[in-house]
């Protein structure tokens, strides 16, 4: 296709997960012409199959500002996308199972307060048992983030897509970005079907984002992972908030209909070129044992489904977010390391500001892509000493 026949836009977004769709919507709200390109279908990957946890709780300090901004949007999500996305606000609770764990939480709390963050609240055993009566008597306390909750991932991603489309964004399902080339002051993005040209490009390609970065000569140490989840049949209602056990890699959420979602970080094996994940039942058994230990009533629950999603993880477990270090007009939005669903609404809003104005007041410096190159340089100069 010749340059003249290529579709043009103000911004081309690669990837139709919650991040791509949220950026598409927010860019449209700023009046930018948007084309979003998705190789499978919108919501097919991490954004459609994740645990739906909407949490600020227990995040790395570097991403808390983005997370807090996102949380504000979640609380008015229906205004933004015309769908409540199944968002509920029952809070999330991090349980300390031992005094040692509690001591660590107290230390973190001091750090957070010193930096002015107030969303996490230390709770004692009494408040913990009021919030989560089913948890073992021996747990000495924990942390609650009361504005947190959960939403329905596929529905939420679709809602962003629909609203973006309703506002005029062009969304191309089933088209894969193969190549990106500089053409004058613009970027030419070649898919397996067509060519698109725009001055700005957002790389929101999830677990494949390193390949997009590589096309731009900007390699990143992205690890492809496959976090696993299990869901049970209906159980009598016994727990309201999302519960997280840090020490034992467990997250636990009961829905209104009684079904219980069990996650927490055990991983299967991703085959990203085939869009396949392989479950590791021996590790799911470890999750099951933890649940059976902590919530004995769950022993008779039936496991109805288990699955995994394909996700990008960075070595420091925080995302890559902001301008490219090599390619003018390109922005990265990936590497959410198994906790990027909550960040979707806020990241899209900040990204649209970056794309439209070139800057933002949101502190995102720690998320820049250059950190990996700087680290590598720092390491190799250490080696030489």
């Amino acid at each position, binding site marked *: 296709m010749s340059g003249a026949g290529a579709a043009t836009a103000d911004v081309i977004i690669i990837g139709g997960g919650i991040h791509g769709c949220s950026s598409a919507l927010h860019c449209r709200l700023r009046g930018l012409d948007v084309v979003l390109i998705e190789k499978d279908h919108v*919501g097919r990957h991490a954004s*459609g199959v994740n645990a739906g946890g909407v949490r600020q709780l227990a995040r790395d300090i570097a991403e808390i500002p983005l997370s807090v901004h996102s949380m504000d949007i979640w609380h008015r999500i229906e205004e933004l996308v015309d769908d409540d996305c199944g968002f509920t606000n029952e809070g999330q609770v991090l349980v300390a199972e031992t005094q040692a764990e509690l001591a660590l939480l107290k230390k973190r709390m001091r750090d957070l307060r010193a930096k002015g963050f107030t969303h996490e609240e230390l709770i004692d055993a009494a408040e913990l048992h009021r919030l989560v009566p089913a948890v073992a008597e021996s747990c000495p306390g924990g942390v609650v983030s009361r504005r947190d909750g959960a939403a*329905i991932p*596929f*529905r939420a991603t*679709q809602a962003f897509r*629909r609203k973006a489309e309703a506002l005029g964004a062009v969304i191309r399902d089933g088209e894969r970005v193969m190549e990106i080339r500089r053409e004058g002051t613009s970027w030419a993005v070649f898919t397996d079907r067509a060519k698109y040209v725009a001055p700005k490009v957002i790389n929101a390609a999830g677990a494949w984002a390193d390949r997009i970065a590589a096309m731009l000569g900007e390699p990143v140490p992205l690890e492809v992972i496959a976090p696993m989840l*299990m869901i*049970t*049949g209906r159980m009598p209602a016994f727990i309201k908030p999302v519960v997280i056990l840090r020490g*034992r*890699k467990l997250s636990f959420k009961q829905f209104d*209909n009684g079904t219980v979602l069990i996650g927490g970080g*055990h*991983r299967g*094996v991703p*085959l990203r070129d085939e869009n*396949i994940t*392989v*479950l*590791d*039942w*021996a*590790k*799911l*058994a*470890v999750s*099951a*044992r933890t*649940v*059976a230990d902590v919530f004995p009533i*769950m*022993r*008779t*629950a*039936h*496991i*109805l*489904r*288990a*699955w995994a999603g394909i996700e990008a993880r960075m070595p420091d477990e925080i995302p890559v977010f902001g301008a490219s270090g090599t390619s003018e007009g390109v922005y990265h939005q990936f590497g959410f390391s198994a906790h990027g669903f909550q960040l979707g609404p806020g990241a899209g809003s900040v990204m649209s500001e970056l794309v439209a104005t070139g800057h933002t007041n949101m502190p995102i410096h720690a998320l820049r892509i250059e950190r990996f190159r700087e680290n590598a340089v720092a390491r190799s100069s250490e080696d030489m000493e």
Partner: protein
Amino acid sequence: MKTIAAIEAFADRYDLAIVGAGPAGLAAASLAVAHGVDVVVLDENASPGGQIYRAVTSTPMTRREILGEDYWRGVELVQEFSGSASSYAPSTTVWNVARGLDGDSLGRDFEIGVSLRGKARLLRAKEVILATGAQERPFPIPGWTLPGVMTAGAAQIALKSSGLVPDGHLVLAGTGPLLYLVAAQLIEAGASIRALLDTTPRANWMSALTATPGFLASPYLAKGLALLRMVHRRLDVVGGITALRAEGQKRLNRVAFERAGRRTELDCDLLLLHQGIVPSINLSNAIGCAHDWDDVQLAFRPQVDAWFASTVQGVAIAGDSAGIAGGESAAARGRIAALGAAFRLERIGAGQRDRDAAPLRAELALLARGRRFLDVFHRPAKAFRVPSDDATLVCRCEEVSAKTIRETVMLGACGPNQMKAFTRCGMGPCQGRLCGLTVTEMITDARAVSPAEVGYYRLRPPVKPVTLAEIAALPQTADAEKAVAR
């Protein structure tokens, strides 16, 4: 045959795991073992025989004429299997089959999740044959979820395995050879049947005869006619039914039906519904085998090659789970699949494989004659596959109505997986068995595209529910321990 009665009695690995002890599974096992393959047959039922020969060695219904001569043919298959060196695990649920992991990468062997008497275990096998048979096609009419309405197949299971003859007044409704077979078996067993309401569309006669003049020479004709005559002689058979409705407050009191534009009611205590059987594809779907839409049988069936090998290397699919063709054909197909597996396992060469398969293929060709007539003749009417009544429940587990499904298509759910995400249909304990085809066909109808394009639910393991305690008790591996530590 080595019977496995406790989870600890399984070996860690087998050459070949066969899921299902119906005619396909039994025949495949006997032949594979004869070629020196180490086989385990896994089956949910307490005794071998599958659906068609269910409980053939243990049924209390020992008067041969009740269940019919075809049923007793199963004895031979079971005897051959019992005399073989195969391992046999009855009362065993297979809840997952997938390529296993070798450390952190995909291995060559399959990992099979089984559970027996409340305990689970992961087995390994080099090859797998799925012989999981068929299931009844969903029959979503208004009121089909009322107590007192069940499938004819379920009534037959009760009759075969426990000798249970239903009390009260019965009505049977639907289409398909099995409906008439169950009617005949229930008549012989002394049930009180008020009527058989036949929903076979009138036009099917013509299309079937023109499609397959060869039927007149087929082995099914004589058998089928004898059955039809017997049922017609002893029962009130009402043909040309165009609408059905199960009615009652807390449970079924009557069935209402329409015929030539006239509505009639019939009081009854039990309504047995049946409109044919379709391949049971839950396992092959969860494994990731490719499936095709069969426009005559109106169902998805796995793509298989001449050895019944699926598109996933190492997985073969035999018997009705590869496409409906009946019990005798299932046994022949099981044997061919076994030859394929024995070859891949290097127990026999290509020459022997092909020689031994030749007579089986000839038998299959013979059995296939006239089969198409049955398929075309018993093609259920659209009215009974795509419910037009808004209130009719499509997904029983999550209580999703026909109205909701139609509205959700309008909202943009263009396939069953999106439908699942929007409405939760198909997400209950039955794993979509009771609504999958209906949902595909309803979306097809609303979008005016082909079922092949709409597709089916992408199913996730476990394909049969297993308890958390069972998973928790899976034997621990060193790898998993490490995973927790890191």
